[in-house]
């Protein structure tokens, strides 16, 4: 039984078009013409309880729109959404108690007050007892290493601490389904690692289901076994991250250290030359040609050192999006 089921989901936005210039402005004022933007088109997928799924796509691909339909903030134009057995847009109390949405660029904590005050309000809204409230705050604060920060005004916290406090506020009611929109946006590497570690721990401790978007590939590789790729409103990949790399990155990167007599022309015959500086070169070689190429290189060139590696995930995903829709 899948926890999230999305069936042929679409969202169209009307956008007013305005011609440039004064004439266009007047026309725009009196008689507005609209065109429709297909933010999400015919997207379908299912997510099982306990999964952590990464939602990838360039800016404007429709990730946030999809998350908003999944949380019931906006109404789908077409298609069906079911989350934990509920239709999100009806926003039933029992549904809202089971989900949470964390948005990296928006905050719910009161700026001028300690996070504790905002947390107390959330506890009252979700009807937690005083005892339960203290227990949960202590538990989450320990997982997030936040204990001594909760009594400072939020405006005095660092960005990383604030994000962690936001996370605490969003998870106080112990939701079963977490929607995270860029939860590590703008954080430094340490804070990113901390947030990631926390999400993993929360997922394991409570068996919660997580759907997250991120521009930091490290978030995705660390947390998600499965990724959804969305591009121009359409789903172009649904599957494991490893298979994605295999499918879209049939390349290896071969890095060699040479004696310094070799010119770039000598190297071009082995593969696509990515980098050539002094005596170090980096080549992109198709996977199936890897062994013969390396053998040839070792035979023909005076090589001091040679390493073979996968290209970075960012590059692979970038390649996928550049190539456009890929089935």
């Amino acid at each position, binding site marked *: 039984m899948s926890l999230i089921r999305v069936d042929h989901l679409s969202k169209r*936005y009307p956008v007013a078009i305005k011609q440039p210039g004064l004439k266009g402005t007047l026309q725009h004022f009196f008689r507005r013409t609209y065109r429709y933007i297909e933010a999400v088109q015919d997207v379908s997928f299912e997510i099982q309880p306990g999964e952590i799924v990464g939602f990838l796509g360039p800016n404007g691909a429709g990730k*946030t729109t999809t998350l*908003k339909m999944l*949380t*019931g*903030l*906006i*109404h789908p134009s077409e298609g069906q959404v079911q989350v934990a057995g509920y239709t999100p847009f009806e*926003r039933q*109390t*029992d549904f*809202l*108690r089971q*989900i*949470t*949405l964390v*948005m990296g*660029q*928006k*905050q*719910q904590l*009161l700026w*001028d*007050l300690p996070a504790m*005050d*905002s947390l*107390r*309000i*959330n506890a*009252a*809204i*979700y*009807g937690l007892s005083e005892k339960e409230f203290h227990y949960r705050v202590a538990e989450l604060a320990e997982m997030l290493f936040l204990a001594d920060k909760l009594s400072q*005004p939020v405006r005095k916290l660092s960005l990383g601490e604030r994000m962690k406090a936001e996370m605490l506020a969003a998870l106080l009611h112990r939701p079963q389904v977490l929607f995270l*929109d*860029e939860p590590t946006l703008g954080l430094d590497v340490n804070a990113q690692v901390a947030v990631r570690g926390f999400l993993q721990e929360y997922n394991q401790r409570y068996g919660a289901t997580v759907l997250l978007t991120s521009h930091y590939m490290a978030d995705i590789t660390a947390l998600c076994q499965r990724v959804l790729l969305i591009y121009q409103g359409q789903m172009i990949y649904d599957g494991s991250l490893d298979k994605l790399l295999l499918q879209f990155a049939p390349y290896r990167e071969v890095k060699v250290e040479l004696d310094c007599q070799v010119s770039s022309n000598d190297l071009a015959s082995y593969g696509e030359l990515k980098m050539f500086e002094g005596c170090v070169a980096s080549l992109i070689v198709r996977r199936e040609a890897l062994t013969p190429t390396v053998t040839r290189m070792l035979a023909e060139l005076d090589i001091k050192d040679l390493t073979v590696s996968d290209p970075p995930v960012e590059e692979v995903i970038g390649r996928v999006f550049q190539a456009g829709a890929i089935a």
Partner: protein
Amino acid sequence: MQRYRQVLWLFWSTAIAAELEYRLNFLIAALSSLGSLAGSLFGLFLFYQTGYEFQNWSWEEALIVLGIFTVLQGVAATFLAPNLNKIVKHVQEGTLDFVLLKPISSQFWLSTRALSPWGVSDVLFGLGIIFYAGSRLGVSFSAYLVALPPLLLGAVSLYSLWFMLGATSIWFVKIYNVTEVLQGLIEAGRFPMAAYPAAYRVFFTFIVPVAFLTTVPAQTLLQRVEWGWIAGSALLAIALFQVSRWFWRFALRFYTSASS
């Protein structure tokens, strides 16, 4: 209900705590309300110094209207303005998302989340004027009590109108000006309705119900109101409140949420 009461208590106590972070504000608010009160007293005084009188309203009776107006202004500044003017901001910045995701009525949240204690000075000055004029007219204690319900009903009507205007920001996003217009029209409640020409009276009774905000409570206080007006006031308040609830649910269907 119990849960809502608890939430309301926390809303208000945190809001006051947040406001008190900025202590100088209180002095400024007190001075500004004193200033505006002096201004409207002077305006009223200009009418009456020459012996001119609004039809059937003596100087003291007109003062009561002004007092009620000032109290209402204070109540609006304390409870309504800090919340309802913020709906626009919530829509613009997309923080309405957080409100909509809480298992609690979003209208309740948006209408009660904040509280600004700075309207209190207006309430105090207004009460001062009412009691001063009331004592000169020999108004009995029970008359003050009887005037409370129509005043409350007026406040409910005002809230409902204001909330609906705020809710239109779902479509128009920038709507500050509209609430300014409403506030401008409410200013008309400073004087008894009798001060206005007939056409204006119709407008301020049936289109923007300013008459029900100050004149009707004042008439009740002076014990010369017809019961029809109080019934009308109640009917109006209940109807507007219901419409505001319906209107909010309707508006949310069009919410598209600010993009990131």
